[in-house]
């Protein structure tokens, strides 16, 4: 059975095997980092010839599980400290950026949403993230801080799904990250609210203990923490820690 699995794996990976002299850094990063990390990765590759960055973007908890099951990752960038804690193998995580919530409404704000108080209105269609995912946990905190009992119509499995519902106009409002509103462009409008400060999400990053390419992994993390990395993150709507 083991031999068979090996054979299957060889077949599956065989096509992508290469003779490149380059070294590869595999970065597992939270889905909300997709756009900004792709850009940072390009910059890093330009500055470090011979190093290639491969990304695996997904929900932080899914990534944490994959790493714990032995996925060959060099770097893990999580959207929440809790998921970083699940990874026993992370070496000295540092918070490299922060994200805060914003109210996302469809273009033109058809539901006439003005603030967090509207999230308790049962007549409005509201999407939140499920509590099990970071944006849901943050939303819960923010609503509590505002003293609003949320009346969501749906608890989405991740922030992108919540945003999709806003984009399609299926809901009047959703609580998502500022970065997501920014990335969504003109279809979605963002509304800031004061309680957002009480539910800021820290993003930790760490090199992994079993990193196949620890040296380059460290250089990538340093690059993210550098001024160039910070600028890119700020431009994408993240806030400095």
């Amino acid at each position: 059975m083991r031999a068979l699995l090996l054979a299957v794996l060889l077949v599956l990976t065989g096509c992508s095997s290469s003779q490149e002299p380059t070294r590869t850094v595999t970065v597992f990063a939270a889905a909300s980092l997709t756009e900004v990390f792709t850009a940072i990765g390009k910059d890093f590759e330009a500055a470090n010839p011979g190093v290639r960055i491969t990304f695996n973007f997904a929900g932080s908890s899914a990534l944490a599980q994959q790493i714990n099951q032995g996925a060959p990752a060099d770097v893990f960038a999580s959207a929440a400290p809790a998921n970083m804690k699940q990874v026993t193998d992370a070496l000295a995580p540092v918070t490299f950026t922060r994200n805060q919530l914003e109210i996302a409404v469809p273009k033109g704000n058809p539901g006439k949403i003005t603030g967090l108080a509207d999230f308790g209105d049962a007549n409005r269609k509201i999407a939140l993230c499920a509590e099990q995912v970071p944006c849901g946990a943050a939303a819960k905190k923010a609503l509590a801080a505002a003293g609003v009992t949320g009346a969501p119509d749906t608890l989405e499995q991740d922030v992108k799904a919540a945003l999709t519902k806003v984009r399609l106009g299926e809901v009047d409002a959703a609580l998502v990250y500022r970065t997501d509103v920014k990335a969504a462009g003109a279809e979605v409008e963002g509304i800031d609210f004061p309680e957002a400060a009480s539910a800021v999400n820290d993003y930790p990053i760490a090199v992994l203990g079993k990193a196949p390419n620890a040296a380059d992994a460290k250089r990538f993390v340093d690059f993210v923490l550098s001024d160039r990395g910070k600028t890119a993150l700020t431009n994408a709507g993240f806030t400095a820690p």
Partner: protein
Amino acid sequence: MNGRRVSRGRLPAVLVLPALVGLAFLVLPLVGLLLRTPWAELPTRLFSTGVGEALQLSLLCASLATVVCVVLGVPLAWVLARGELPGRRLIRALVTVPLVLPPVVGGVALLLVLGRRGPVGELLDSWFGVSLPFTTAGVVVAEAFVAMPFLVISVEGALRAADPRIEEAAATLGASRWLTFRRVTLPSVMPGVVAGTVLCWARALGEFGATITFAGNFPGETTTMPLAVYLALESDPQAAIVLSVVLLAVSVAVLASLRDRWVGG
């Protein structure tokens, strides 16, 4: 040609080996799941309200979706198998679209049409005050959309395999096409209909992508077992395993009893 038949019972290895590997491939993940199940916690988790609610909702929605599929899908299969329509090949290809479409995309497509800004959804809302997304009815719609091809393909196959002259015999005996369909055609393709229904139900029960995209996720209303499993996986993998095992056990029990009842074991 007249060589002695040696041991009719022995099967050729060239078939048996791949068969065993295939079986292992299907069963091993299941075994993995069972091995990791926290059996001690099972009863307490099982009777937590969330699980019962999700399971009940799953069974209800899958069954309703199956009814929708049978009511709409069997006639569709009949038209595809017997009707002399122009562009029948194209229609048949279209029917299988939900099979190839990633379910999430199917969910988005449903939103685009039946959502409150979709052309049909808008009409439903203004005429009947009905809004499907984020409702239990929406779950049924999403599940039916994804599961219907299984029924249609299965029933159409059975209809094509059936001798169309048996319908002619009924016609010469004075039976209208509807009576013929009801009393002659349908009973003769019943095994195909049952097989299709079972497939359809199983597919609806396990449906995740289209459901969460179109109907969203809200406990007691649209959170079916697969959605509950997915979200549990985010925070509590053990709970996810328990939910999966429950879903598995229930579906296997239902399918096995159906098989005994209809397919005659």
